[in-house]
């Protein structure tokens, strides 16, 4: 029997219900993409990096630094070379000023790009195709069945098509003489595969009818269960998102780079926004840590 090879390992966050996980990722990505406040950005990057590490094997994370570091430097350096806004020139290049503000903005951009990339990567690892399918299915039940059937059909189709091509090769029908011959041959295989697909679909639809497809009141089954813990997580996400959003809308935790970098606010409301987003971005990592602690407690009790 084949064993399923999953890339990396699945962390504690992978067990979260898809709906809660989706809301979480949307919340984090939304804030990450629109906030350029240094504190929020650092929190976002640290959260993403720690999350990524929990999802990967040991060596993998180290190797990836080799990819992200040059990318970081490139983005950070590119901005001050082309943007000359800001009032604090560091030095002149070809008669243009390279400013401190532009450099800081470049660093901020780079943090943002890499942070979002890392979050997307985590999202891809956690939100596997069946979770997306499930979420679609909740919205449009018919579509999810069609997608599932399509995912089933594609490999079967490709395999049959390869078999036909091999059979023809062994009959000496793939002569390789001239392009017209080859196109004609491919065309024939393609046309034949259409009739094969129809034939296959007839059989499949008989199997569906035999199992009562087409009756009223079809339900949609999935392996995911929405547990109370998922509810807590979901509410927590929404609450933290609201804190950050309202705080920002009220003008707290704001930061500007041009013309001169502003100060980092330290009013209680600012601190509340930092804390809320910090908690939000570190949530998956904290979950993982909790899991490890619970596990080692269990083991030590045995």
């Amino acid at each position: 029997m084949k064993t399923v090879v999953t890339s990396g390992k699945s962390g504690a966050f992978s067990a979260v219900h898809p709906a809660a996980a989706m809301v979480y990722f949307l919340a984090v990505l939304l804030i990450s993409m629109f906030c350029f406040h240094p504190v929020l950005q650092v929190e976002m990057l640290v959260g993403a990096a720690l999350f990524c590490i929990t999802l990967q094997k040991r060596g993998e994370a180290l190797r990836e630094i080799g990819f992200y570091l040059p990318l970081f430097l490139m983005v950070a350096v590119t901005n001050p070379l082309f943007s000359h806004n800001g009032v604090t020139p560091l030095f002149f290049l070809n008669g243009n000023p390279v400013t401190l503000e532009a450099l800081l903005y470049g660093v901020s951009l780079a943090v943002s790009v890499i942070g979002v990339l890392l979050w997307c990567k985590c999202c891809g690892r956690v939100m596997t195709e069946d979770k997306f399918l499930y979420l679609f299915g909740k919205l449009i039940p018919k579509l999810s069945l069609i997608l599932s059937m399509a995912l089933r059909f594609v490999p079967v189709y490709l395999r049959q098509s390869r078999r036909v091509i091999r059979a023809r090769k062994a009959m000496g029908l793939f002569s390789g003489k001239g392009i017209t011959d080859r196109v004609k041959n491919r065309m024939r295989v393609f046309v034949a595969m259409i009739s094969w697909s129809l034939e296959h679909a007839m059989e499949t639809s008989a199997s569906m009818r035999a199992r009562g497809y087409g009756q009223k009141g079809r339900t949609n089954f999935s392996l995911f269960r929405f547990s109370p813990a998922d509810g807590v997580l979901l509410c927590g996400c929404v609450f933290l998102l609201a804190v950050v959003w309202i705080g920002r809308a009220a003008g707290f935790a704001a930061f500007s780079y041009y013309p001169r970098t502003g100060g980092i606010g330290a009013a209680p409301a600012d601190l509340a926004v930092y804390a809320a987003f910090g908690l939000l971005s570190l949530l998956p990592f904290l979950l993982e840590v909790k899991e490890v602690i619970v596990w080692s407690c269990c083991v030590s009790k045995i």
Partner: protein
Amino acid sequence: MELLRVEDLSFRYPNAGRNALDGIDLTVQNGEFVLLCGPSGCGKTTLLQMLKKELAPAGEKTGRIFYAGAPQEDSADAGEIGFVRQDPESQIVTDKVWHELAFGLENMGVPTDTIRRRVGEMAGFFGIEGWFRQKTDELSGGQKQLLNLAAVLVMQPKLLILDEPTGQLDPIAAADFITTLQKINRELGLTVLLAEHRLEEIFPIVDRVLVMEDGRIRADDEPQHIAARLTAISPDHPMLRALPAAVRVWQEVRGKGECPLTVKEGRDFLHRHFTGSDAPRPEPEDPEKGDFAVELKNVWFRYEKDAPDILRGVTAKIRRGEIFCLLGGNGAGKTTALNVIAGLERAYRGKIVIKGKPIRSYQGNSLYRRNLAFLPQNPQTVFVRDTLRADLAEIPETMGIPKSEQADRIGQMANRLGIASLLERHPYDLSGGEQQKCALAKVLLSEPKILLLDEPTKGLDAFAKQGLREILRELKREGITLLLVTHDVEFAAETADRCAFLFDGEILSVDSPRRFFAGNSFYTTAASRMARGLWPDAVTCEQVVACCRAEESRTGRKTDFPAEGKL
């Protein structure tokens, strides 16, 4: 209690000349295990489909079908009767195993929590837990068919109908599947109606056997009495050839008393009545002759650089004009070996010589012109056109044969294989056996000297196998070398000149079928296992019967058993 009753059912497909079903009367009791057998095209599939109203074909129908006492039209839901068909692949609807199991229950609007419980229960019963979350595409053929069965059973049917469910499986997967059916019938008391042509394992475990012929039920009795019933209709009834080895031998030597069904019973029967004193002398070992059509010299193959080796130094010499069978279990590398010989894969070490020339020296398509032809496992893959005639014409066209001559060649080939009446049909509309003959016609049009066949008996019934055997012998007489890869030990024993056993990428033994199977204790024919202690060299039913007859005539003992057995 009676679960199913069919009264005088006749059915005719639109525009058909004769009835597909003709006056069928049939009852099935609750908890019975009923086997339906008969040659391909006798109406088995039509009858089974008529029993499930969602699958009933369109046409003229007379007679009535009662299900659980009520007319079929009134019966309620689709879950009551489960139906499993031959092709494991096309019955699977969704991409994940768990989803496939839940599919039927979803359709019936069962609430999610109930589905969860029933699916879990079913996965446990079938031992599916290990691959529950896997993609359906990653499963083996046997697993796919078990999944199809489980996906039907999860709907808790009262009657399970199966139409040749093991036809596309290898012998081990087929035996597993049949064991599961037996378990379902015994432990759950589920009523099972099964059409099947591989009878060796199934015959001993069923309660009743129905034999169909030309749309009628010709025999309906317990398995012990079927041979006698058929003999009463005609002493050389064609269906007799399809029965298990023990039944065939017993019937041929006109055995007395209870008919043996299993190898064990057949063995007891032989040991009671025969002493085995006339064991024929073992065949002399035949010397290696020098004229070889295909030579493999220390061939190594793997699919990818880092993948494990599939062939590990295969060495074999296939003589010109012989029928050579390559046997072996799943994953032994049989099909890969055939692909390497056919030039579809390239060995990374070793030498392959076709008709005295290394395979690499055949330029372009010259290997496939008047040299070597390959019949794939699935004959459907050979066809791409709308009519069989157009498909066959592809070969002479590319060989550059003049138009005027093409039609002649196709006509000759069609007559030779008895498919002339099928030439205007769509290849996909033909039955499995017909498709195979037509595919064979197509590959033979390239006038090969060597013919490679991959699992040619897959899905064929006993009659089609007999037909195939005759065609192969005819080709051999014309001097064509035949190389078969097969799981089917019975077919190999009756057809081959030499057999080889491939295991773990190596050829372990090569010999004539008699010596080959006599040397194996497990991997051998049912006839050989039965006659082992008496005539170690007898490996087919014919050979066992011949030994029995020889002993009878020597001892002068007339086995004048009454022919009717116990009726």
